[in-house]
């Protein structure tokens, strides 16, 4: 066993160099004053106080959470029916559909987002079509709508794949049993299929909400240069303003929010999870 243990050393080294040390640096930066050198660290909570006392930052945080929540809810509402239809089709078709869902992910996210800019811009595809029907051109790009559209478009495959996976492993005989006990299709869905697919929905939420709440490329492109979500604020602090300490503090606040939300989803997932794990063994 000892010889095998040794094989993990390079990996440990990698983790230390690439994850642990940068994380520690963020913590140190967040808790210190600007202009310190390594020898004379001056610890302070000013960076955090600054964030929580500034109404602009707080409203940006609120907007980020709101946009991420809307994105997640839309992903569930649109993704669940799609996942359900995929899971219900024959294996050959299922593989095709899953390929189609994952296919866009082979292309760089920036390119896909730029494509949306072309579609939504003032003289883009959508407005051309509207004009054709005699409707006034609408301002679509650089709005909340555009940002949410970009996020839903980019993150929905994760939701679909998670829900589809949990629907696909659903035991058919449970559906037969529900039918047998008098449930019609709708009752069967509400009482058996939906509750048993919740673990998939919850891991889908994790996979969509987390990147959505900290995303900065999509709001930058789809929301325009002035559109600020918390991810953009952090980016600004590091790249434009040069306030590494304050940027680190916001990153830490975001990390805490993400950890709390993960804890909550875990908690929600727990009961269902225990059940599905038990079933897996049987």
């Amino acid at each position, binding site marked *: 066993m000892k010889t095998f243990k040794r094989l993990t050393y390079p990996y440990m080294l990698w983790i230390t160099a690439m994850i642990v040390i940068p994380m520690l640096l963020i913590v140190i930066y967040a808790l210190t004053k600007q202009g310190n050198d390594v020898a004379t660290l001056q610890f302070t909570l000013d960076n955090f106080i600054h964030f929580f006392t500034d109404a602009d930052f707080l409203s940006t945080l609120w907007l980020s959470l709101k946009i991420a929540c809307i994105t997640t809810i839309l992903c569930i509402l649109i993704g669940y029916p799609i996942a359900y239809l995929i899971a219900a089709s024959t294996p050959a078709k299922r593989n095709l559909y899953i390929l189609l869902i994952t296919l866009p992910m082979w292309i760089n996210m920036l390119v896909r987002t730029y494509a949306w800019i072309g579609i939504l811009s003032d003289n883009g595809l959508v407005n051309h079509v509207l004009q054709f029907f005699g409707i006034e051109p609408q301002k679509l790009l650089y709005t909340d709508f555009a940002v949410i559209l970009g996020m839903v478009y980019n993150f929905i495959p994760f939701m679909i794949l998670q829900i589809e996976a949990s629907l696909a492993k659903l035991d058919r005989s449970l559906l*037969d049993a529900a039918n047998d*006990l008098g*449930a019609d299709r709708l009752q069967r869905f509400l009482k058996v299929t939906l509750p048993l697919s919740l673990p998939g929905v919850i891991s889908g939420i994790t996979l969509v909400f987390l990147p959505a709440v900290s995303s900065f490329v999509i709001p930058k492109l789809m929301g325009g240069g002035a559109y600020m979500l918390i991810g953009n604020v952090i980016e600004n602090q590091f790249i434009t303003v040069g306030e590494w300490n304050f940027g680190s503090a916001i990153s830490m606040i975001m990390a805490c929010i993400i950890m709390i939300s993960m804890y909550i989803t875990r908690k929600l997932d727990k009961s269902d999870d225990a059940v599905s794990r038990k079933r897996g063994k049987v």
Partner: protein
Amino acid sequence: MEMIEMNEAKRLIEFKNIVKDFDGQLVLKGISLDIYENEFVTLLGPSGCGKTTLLRILAGFLKQNEGRVIFDGEEISELPPYKRELNTVFQKYALFPHMNVYENIAFGLKIKKMSKDVIEQKVMKMLKLINLEGFEQRNVTLLSGGQQQRIAIARALVNEPKVLLLDEPLAALDLKLRKEMQYELKRIQQEVGITFIYVTHDQEEALTMSDKIVVMKDGEIQQVGTPTDIYNEPQNRYVANFIGESNIISGIMRKDKLVRFDDMDFECVDIGFKENEPVDVVIRPEDLDIVAQDGGKMNGVVKSVLFKGVHYEIMVETVPGTTVSVKMNVTKEHDVASSDAKERISANHFFVDLEDVKDLNDAEIIARADAQAWDPENDEYLSISKIEYELKEEVGNYPVTFSTVLGTAVTVNIMVVEQKYVENPKKNEAISAFNFFKSVDEIKESVALDTDLKTWANAQGWKLSDESSVEIEDVEYDFDPDTITPGVYQVTFSTKGRVFKVHTTDIAEEGAEIALNFYSEDIHVMSKIGY
């Protein structure tokens, strides 16, 4: 007249000529079956016989291609499962893992929007029926198989169906629990007084629980009857074999109440067959008694005795198998080396029957002579590139020469003879084998000596009536293969004799000469089936 009407059980389900295929494969070939009220009916058959398919058609999960299902006087083929007045207990229980015991049992009642207190009353009554009171809040996934099984039964029964369908419900339980559940199920059925349709492949389960057994095979019904009917009066060889243990012998019905098998006539009670009609005869192992030699209907020798707990299972051979002995000529090494010693080649003399000479070809000759060439350096086989021989369809010796590409050659004799064979009219069979030549090494290197001996001697058995082949069961020889030296040895091949399985509480010595006795009513004669 009215009295008879009242006594007659009401017909509840009628299957009318049900046909079902899956992707062109016929699974049900026109099943017609009536099921009555309050019956415990078992659909019995091996996996793939269509029993579960029939059940799923009745439950509404599958739709038949042809035929009608009539339930309580109404055609229900178009009715979806949730509108049918029956419930199913699934093979792997199919309990809802996200609900506790109470919620599982209450599922059907909640769907029917019954009031809370009525639901609670009914669920509690069910828990009492299945002896699981106090389990309401338990997680179903943490219960034992037997408990899950009973919850599944309660979940179905609480809906007060007219029929309960059970799809191999005990298959996943261990033996002891299965036996307990058999009684439990029968008790529950009698207590609630509804029709149970039970699917199983376990004949013992079927015999224990059923009022009526439906034996199925390949999508067809073989026999319908009470357990005693099915056991005592099986309609054919298949049913007799599937239900309980049995000795089945081919025979001929001489006339009413007289059957002939193993070259002897026996009185029986069966009538209605054609004169000299070929039939199958069943004698159950427990109907045979072992008595002193010449004191019974057939003399025999005890071949083996097995202790089975309540009884002994004794195999008695009444007609010995057919036997033939041949001589095996064992020589030392007989391989030939090439001049540069780079190659070795070997082959055996062999005998062949005059009648078979015309069937000999190169490949056959190589196989029969066991001709082999190899490189002694690395033991790799080399191909034999040339065979030279001249054969006539006359008795005599004919040399044959095998050679490799490099010209290393060996010559052996093909000995054409008129082979005698041993006939055994009592068992309607014959057996033949040839003397043969082998080297010490070949015998020592054999990994399956019995099989090799059969091949080397070309031992064959066949039926006298239709020349179909008869397996050679026994190979005996008078040498020890590990220490064999050159010389001549005897090898004896024999077919299996007529062996009767006897279940008795009296022990008999292995090898004892005894007789078997039975009563004429213990013989059950069946028509042959056409496969």
